[in-house]
């Protein structure tokens, strides 16, 4: 079962990557990055069990955290730059 899930996760990651490459708007790419990050968290967790050393869940946790921060950071960047532009115009 673990192997099946691992393969599924890899497949889903590939699909998300395709969306990240294609994504017409930047937000699509951010979305893909987010999906990709969540899948990585799951993948690490499942892989830990698969290899029989599930002590390394710390890493999955850090992935979840970093993924969140970078997505939020990218989004804030948009708001900052748009806000900056609006500031210049007024």
């Amino acid at each position, binding site marked *: 079962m673990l192997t099946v899930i691992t393969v*599924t996760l890899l497949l889903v990651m590939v*699909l998300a990557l395709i*969306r990240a490459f294609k994504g017409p708007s930047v*937000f699509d790419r951010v979305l893909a990055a987010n999906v990709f990050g969540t899948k990585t968290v799951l993948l690490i967790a499942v892989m830990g069990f698969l290899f029989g050393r599930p002590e390394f869940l710390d890493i999955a946790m850090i992935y979840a955290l970093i993924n969140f921060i970078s997505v*939020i950071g990218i989004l804030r960047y948009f708001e900052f730059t*748009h806000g900056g532009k609006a500031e210049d115009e007024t």
Partner: protein
Amino acid sequence: MDLFISILSGVCMALGGILLISGAVGVLRFSDFYNRLHAAGVTDTLAASLILFGLMLLSEHSGILLKLILILLFVLLTSPTASHALAKAAWKAGLKPDTSNDKPGQ
């Protein structure tokens, strides 16, 4: 009892896997950004919790269980928030159905 638990975790993970695939196909195939966000955001949380729950059933050690629960809480907290932030940022950037915001480079 052991068998029951392993079957239960298998079912959980299988469900999670199906959800994952449907979400990914949705992300890939839907036409509009908000549709895609919907597909990703909804399936992500449930699939992640299902898979993590399945793993929890498999874990014997209490420390691992604790970490899994922490990860689950984390995912439950961050994933919808990230979706919300994405939708809000896209809306603010003027991404309605069109994508006029995103011009390719000159």
